[in-house]
């Protein structure tokens, strides 16, 4: 047993922190918020040079072949800086789905170019009748002589507007279970019948879109993996992305706590620093407890998925439920303890609060995951 990070992982953390401190300060983040893209080509290329855009892909596909525990380290640092842009959607969702389910030709076509920063991907899986399991995928893909025709709406698709290719989850048949009959498709951005509309959402550093498919015809070669059997790889991708997001949430929350503690030491009220009052101090202590516990569950989930142990799905839901509640509480308490200044546009807490809220509800909120945990522990 050794529940800590290796020297290599600590080195990755240090490198990431230095890089992001230099390249991703709050002025940079705020500038990206104001733009549709939320990323610059220059910044994206720098991420490629760091090797981060292919960090979890196999070396044969142009990646670094690192595990989820390594990724957790990087995500915590990205969270500390509320790194804007489509890292999650391109690298960990769209690209990861191609890596997980794609044929060797599809992987060769996309993954080295994603890792090099030349192409971006996104994953279109959630729909207006929002749920985070296989039953949530209802959009029909009808089989035709030439391939498939897809019609319907995908909602809350991360960074679809930036993607060169969408990975779309659709239903190819009503199988005996909800899992049976889900298929994954590649959909290049210029496909006829594909309309992407940006949604004005709370976290403008990470844009969400509505994706409308109006009789979109796809050749059979654009099917990813086995027909009807797309849920298994998709659920693996989503589980890993959810754990990565948990790590990012922990990193952001740690930064909120650090900012809050610094402020509580400096800000004087009634002749004393506010941090000396137990009403403030005890809330800061509770923030730390929540963060440490969410980190613990995130690390365990990352290890469990890397190792393929039996309780992996349970571990993911525990991590996400804990991180979701933690993120909301920590970001909210951070604002409360800052007082009025914490409510201003000028203060950086807004960036963290908005990211926390968006992340809290992504991949299922705490209630969703507690329900899943109850099902899993019920045997």
């Amino acid at each position, binding site marked *: *047993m050794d*529940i800590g990070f*290796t020297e290599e992982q600590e080195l990755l953390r240090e490198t990431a922190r230095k890089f992001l401190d230099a390249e991703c300060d709050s002025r940079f983040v705020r500038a990206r918020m104001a733009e549709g893209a939320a990323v610059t080509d220059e910044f994206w290329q720098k991420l490629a040079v760091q090797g981060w855009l292919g960090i979890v892909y196999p070396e044969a596909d142009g990646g670094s072949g690192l595990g989820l525990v390594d990724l957790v380290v990087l995500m915590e640092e990205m969270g500390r800086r509320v790194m804007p842009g489509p890292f999650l959607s391109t690298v960990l969702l769209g690209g990861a789905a191609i890596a997980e389910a794609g044929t060797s030709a599809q992987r060769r076509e996309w993954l080295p170019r994603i890792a090099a920063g030349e192409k971006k991907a996104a994953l279109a899986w959630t729909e207006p009748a929002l749920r985070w399991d296989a039953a949530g995928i209802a959009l029909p893909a009808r089989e035709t002589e030439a391939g498939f025709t897809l019609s319907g709406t995908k909602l809350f698709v991360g960074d679809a507007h930036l993607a060169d290719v969408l990975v779309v989850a659709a239903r190819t048949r009503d199988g005996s279970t909800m899992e049976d009959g889900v298929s994954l498709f590649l959909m290049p951005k210029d496909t006829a019948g594909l309309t992407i509309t940006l949604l004005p959402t709370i976290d403008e550093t990470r844009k969400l879109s509505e994706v409308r498919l109006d009789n979109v015809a796809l050749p059979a070669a654009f099917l990813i993996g086995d027909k009807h059997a797309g849920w298994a790889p998709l659920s693996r991708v989503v589980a890993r992305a959810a754990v990565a997001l948990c790590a990012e949430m922990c990193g952001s929350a740690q930064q909120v706590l650090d900012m809050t503690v610094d402020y509580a030491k400096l800000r004087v009220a009634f002749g004393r620093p506010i941090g000396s009052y137990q009403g403030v101090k005890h809330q800061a202590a509770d923030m730390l*407890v929540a963060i440490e516990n969410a980190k613990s569950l995130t*690390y365990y989930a990352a290890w469990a998925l890397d190792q393929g142990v039996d309780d992996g799905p349970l571990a993911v839901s525990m991590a996400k439920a*804990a991180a979701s509640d933690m993120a909301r509480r920590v970001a909210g308490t951070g604002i409360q303890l800052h007082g009025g200044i914490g409510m201003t546009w000028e203060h950086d807490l807004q960036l963290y609060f908005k990211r926390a809220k968006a992340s809290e509800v992504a991949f299922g909120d705490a209630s969703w995951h507690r329900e899943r945990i109850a099902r899993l522990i019920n045997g």
Partner: protein
Amino acid sequence: MDFADSPEHAAFRAEFRRWLEGNLPPEICVDDAADQRVAPDRETLEKRIAWQKKMHAAGWVGISWPEEYGGRGASFMEQVIFDEEYFRARAPVLPTASALNLLGPTLIHWGTEEQKKRHLPRILSADELWCQGYSEPDAGGDLASLRTRAVDRGDHFVVNGQKVWTSGAHFADWCFLLVRTDPDAPKHHGISYLLVDMKTPGVTVRPLVLLNGHRHFNEVFFEDVAVPKQNLVGPLNQGWKVAITTLMFERSGAGGRDHAAQIARLAELARQFPNRQEPAWNDSHIRQQLAQLAIDVKALQVTRLRGLTRRLRGEPPGPEGSILKLFGSELALRIADFSSTLLGPYATVDAPTEAVPDAARWHNRVLGARQYTIAGGTSEIQRNIIGERVLGLPKG
């Protein structure tokens, strides 16, 4: 990052688990060992002493002590595995547990050869039982302000004063006692560490019964109690330093309390127990709460392991250690509260009932769990400690 046992540790775990399976008598098993650290009666105590002797004969007592003093020189990780397996098997806390964890290592570090020879074997064999005389009515969280006096009378000290919250003093043959030997020195510098025979004239033990009716704690009064000088441990007036060494040996977090068994039982009850004609499990409010408790139990377990890793690596303690006491004790309370949400009036019955055969367990949890957010530093003090020592916020 590796949550699995190494092959050596897995073998050690398997060996001890097997031994427990073959040797632990079912009639002495307890559901929540920490609630019964002190045996409820003499008959139970005798059974537990017999159990300790059996363990000792097989070499399973005091495993982290050096071999020359009767231990196995077990590593810290082996001690952790030992504790996990021991409580997993529902074995009761050993009658000399506090002496094994605190006094023994202190004597090994500070004691004279005579003290070691006299006491260490009897701690291992449970031939003599000990109590810990630290807290006083006006010295709880602020222990160093203790006032029990020991006056130098040549070849002995004369002790006068009162201790409180003394676990198991009514069964104890000996007491390891902190006394003030120099009232003029700054409070941490006038304390000494004594070993006191509880049969000495002038020692009076009065029960301090808890709200659940358990006799666990006592008040201990010292009235002109003569203690031979050879029973001083470590240098005169340096008892604080000696005691701190003791507290460092307290394996806070090692083994720890694991509430997973309670959650598993509550989940089972939720599936069986009717709540308005349906299994309580069908109520999403019940499922949500159970799932949250399961999450928190796992979080506590992993946070504890992270703290252990730091210790095994020889790194300075991180924030994990400080939060275990706070979070663990509050979690124990929430589990107890949930049991009454789930079971309603059944959780208030101190006897088996048809619908809930283990109703008394939950009744005892509801009452007993209250102590853990108080004993060993209240949750309020823990939050101050975290705020000040971990986060660096100014003192109030």
